[in-house]
């Protein structure tokens, strides 16, 4: 089956073309062209849009809107997005970061999608045109969203000290994730944790929240004793993947260790 690329100036036209059988949206190509190279015969047409809105970044009043076609390397070097640059830099090597997009990362199956883990901790909104969906709901239903086009993501840029991110890999500096963790903490002046959002990568087939651990952190101090109850329930509800990098068992075993180190760092 021959492949074809269809390019549209506007998102609406691309959206319409995506309804055809065999059509897949082409972002940076690191997932979709790879699938074609691997012989995915369900894919016959690449659809893309060159709409400038997809490539724009705006940060106003501490709230960032990042177009879906913005690449990881663009985020990593953007002066107003320094707080989340570590998550963008965690993706791939330099060439992948020059190609991989924010929109594509939302659909990346584990062990990929480290940036989406950060977006989940940040409680981002996923925009499809005028429609905004909380990222929790978007990720849960993302298989159904495959025929639609994400136009942008929107989130409050965190204060650097409130946001923590780690990607655990066996190969340094670049390797596929054993797991990744993003944490957004709201701490009172005396250090008591008022609220926490913890997102995990590779602990399911898509980024997920560690809801039990989030609850167990509230009212606690960020000390080894204070976080112990949260670490004890960190794996609740997880269904880690098994792949060439690590088994599900291994991922489950090391999750509390890395979450603990991240919280205490």
């Amino acid at each position, binding site marked *: 089956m021959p492949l074809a*690329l269809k390019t549209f100036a506007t998102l609406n036209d691309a959206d319409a073309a995506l309804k055809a059988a065999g059509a897949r949206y082409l972002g940076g190509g690191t997932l979709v062209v790879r699938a074609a190279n691997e012989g995915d015969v369900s894919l016959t047409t690449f659809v893309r849009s060159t709409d400038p809105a997809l490539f724009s970044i705006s940060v106003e009043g501490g709230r960032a809107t990042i177009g879906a076609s913005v690449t990881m390397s663009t985020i990593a070097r953007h002066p107003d997005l320094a707080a989340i640059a570590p998550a963008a830099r965690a993706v791939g090597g330099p060439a992948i970061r020059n190609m991989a997009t924010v929109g594509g990362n939302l659909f990346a199956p584990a062990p990929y999608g480290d940036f989406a883990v950060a977006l989940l901790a940040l409680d981002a909104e996923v925009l499809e045109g005028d429609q905004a969906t909380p990222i929790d709901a978007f990720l849960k239903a993302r298989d159904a969203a495959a025929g639609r086009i994400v136009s942008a993501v929107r989130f409050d840029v965190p204060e650097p000290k409130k946001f923590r991110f780690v990607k655990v890999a066996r190969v340094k500096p670049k390797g596929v994730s054993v797991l990744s963790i993003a944490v957004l903490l709201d701490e009172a002046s005396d250090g008591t944790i008022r609220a926490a959002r913890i997102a995990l990568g590779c602990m399911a087939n898509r980024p997920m929240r560690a809801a039990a651990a989030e609850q167990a952190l509230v009212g606690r101090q960020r000390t080894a004793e204070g976080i112990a109850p949260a670490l004890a329930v960190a794996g609740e509800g997880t269904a880690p993947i098994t792949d060439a990098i690590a088994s599900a068992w291994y991922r489950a075993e090391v999750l509390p260790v890395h979450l603990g180190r991240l919280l205490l760092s």
Partner: protein
Amino acid sequence: MGVAREEKRMAKVPIQFVLNGDEKAEFVESGSTLLKVLREKLGDTSPKGGCHQGTCGTCSVLVDGELRLSCLTLAETCEGASVTTTAGLAEGGVLHPLQRAFQEGFATQCGFCTPGMIMAAKALLDRVPNPTREEVVDAISGNICRCTGYEPIIRAILSAARSNSHHAA
């Protein structure tokens, strides 16, 4: 029937871009990767096809100065762009400082990763003329070499940077 007609119509598309300073115009199959067009249409076999998954890095080229994996880049998305491959680095038979450093520093063994390593290194040196070792390691972190153990490659890139004769093409 309609589908068959559309497939036939979509079979070939015109594309123009600059390859190593020379203007190129070709008819390519829609959806072709840049790697395929470079190697099979334009006869530039310097970028290699390794994994075709974005993992090995040996297909790396520069598109408008930015490091890309040509196996995952569709040729049509490079319309009007300037593409640089390892084949375009030597000038008048004189090797580029990176190529010379790789040759002199035994940074090449089987040679399959070399074109990707050199393009990744060029992308770095064009941006950071005097990189630290850490920056070099990061720059080639998307490129796999199964022969050298990486050390000679890292040393060669640092040596090319130190030679001060590096010229941003």
